[in-house]
């Protein structure tokens, strides 16, 4: 079963041995958002050779302390407790039911939350022996979802990235003509599963730091569609986040197909 994203909020999470809870950020989740899904994105030890790091979109340089996401093996416990205004409606849900690996190892149960959440009463309870850094994603909608998987057309872009420059934020309007701005996007696919994120912004939609991994996988259950979103490419970025500089072949050629 494919899933359909209208908006995607993201924030960085640091789990450390001296703390046992983290809360949703109030400036990320607002009371008028109807939340559909919540999931966590870690680095995975199961990555293919050459993908030994997962860069952090919130780090500006590959030398920053927070430049990479970490694997979750030091996390001993991690439970989600989510409340709406009336009560806790998710109690002690283990994070194994929620985390995303390269195979998108995620259960449907975290979908269909279908309500606003109370950030003050919602939190993750955890124990970890090391500091762990991951991303927390929240899919939400502010208007009814339109379900129309039929594509009207597509366009391609190619972006050559000079890896010797380290982390880069590449403005998409440098590659996408202004005329494409009015197209309502239903899907983006990529030829490279890692090494970057898209930050897609417009007045009506907000897809924040979506990892290329979610655009690359094409498993039937997790095939990802955008809910006919508009994107202002003059404010939207490809965030290249490969913490390692490639000496042999310093240029990556990213190919993307945008479907509308």
């Amino acid at each position: 079963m494919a899933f359909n994203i209208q908006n995607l909020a993201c924030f960085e999470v640091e789990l450390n041995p001296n703390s046992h809870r983290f809360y949703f950020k109030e400036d990320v989740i607002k009371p008028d958002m109807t939340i559909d899904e919540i999931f966590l994105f870690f680095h995975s030890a199961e990555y293919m050779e050459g993908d030994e790091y997962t860069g952090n979109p919130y780090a500006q340089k590959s030398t920053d302390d927070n430049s990479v996401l970490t694997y979750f093996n030091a996390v001993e416990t991690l439970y989600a407790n989510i409340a709406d205004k009336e009560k806790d409606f998710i109690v002690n849900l283990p994070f194994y039911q929620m985390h995303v690996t390269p195979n998108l190892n995620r259960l449907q149960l975290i979908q269909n939350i279908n309500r606003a959440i109370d950030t003050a009463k919602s939190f993750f309870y955890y124990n970890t022996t090391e500091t762990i850094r991951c991303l927390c994603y929240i899919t939400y909608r502010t208007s009814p979802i339109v379900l129309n998987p039929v594509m009207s057309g597509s366009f391609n872009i190619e972006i050559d990235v000079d890896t010797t420059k380290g982390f880069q934020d590449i403005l998409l309007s440098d590659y996408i003509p202004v005329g494409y701005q009015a197209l309502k996007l239903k899907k983006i696919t990529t030829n490279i599963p890692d090494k970057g994120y898209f930050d897609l912004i417009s007045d009506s939609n907000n897809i924040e730091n979506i990892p290329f991994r979610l655009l690359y996988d094409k498993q039937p259950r997790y095939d990802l569609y955008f809910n006919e979103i508009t994107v202002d490419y003059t404010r939207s970025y490809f965030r290249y986040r490969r913490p390692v500089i490639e000496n042999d072949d310093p240029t990556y050629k990213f190919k993307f197909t945008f479907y509308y």
Partner: protein
Amino acid sequence: MNQLISGAYGLEVQIAPGQNKIELPYISSLKGKRFKHIDIVDSIPFGKSGKAVAGFMGNAEIDGYISLREENTQTMIFNNLNLDELKVLKHKGNRIAISHKISLERSFITLTTNTIEEIKVLFIVFYYDEPTVLKPKRNVLTEISDFELVLKQSRTSLLEEPKLKNRLIRNVLVDILGKTPRGNDKISSDTLMRSFITLQKRNFQFFKDIPLQLLYQVGLSESFNFENISFDFTNSFVDVVSFTNDDKKAIFFNCILEAQK
């Protein structure tokens, strides 16, 4: 795609070396039930009797087909369906939808390969639709709650859970390893694979002898889709085959529930 189910029955059938046909037994409690899915459980090492499961973890010692006869028309609706289609490790939660009443005693398994050297078992789970269970309302919000059970002996009854009493359950999930929110060590994968759960409402068994491992649904293509089931906790239990002191840990459950107003 997984269908709504309201009951499941775990059945162990023996296979002798060289045997090439297994007649399925008559099971009175399945008479008249609409079957929704069938699992050949090749992900557990032992059946409820403690006998080894043939074909465990994809072992090629057995191979064959299942033929299922429809109860009312007595037609063979599934004729030589490859057993692989029903194997848990193959379908990864994406079960074939059946939705027919099946005459089990007139259905059978044909083994085209049988190289076992001692008596083993095939563990089969039949999922069905129990007419007395109310179908879930559409577009109703869900909640997720939890409970845990510390195993004490080979059969441990569930404890009363006031917060879940008479709640309508859409799915039950099991988690292993690490610690529960109450600080108990969770069971290992080994214990999980030797455990069977029975969920009852009064004397009515919604889930009978179901491998607990099937409720560990992480990473599956699809998770279970229960009709609104409620059960009596103190009348339900978990059996562990070949129980040892190492098994004395907690099973951590999450329940997906229809939301209460």
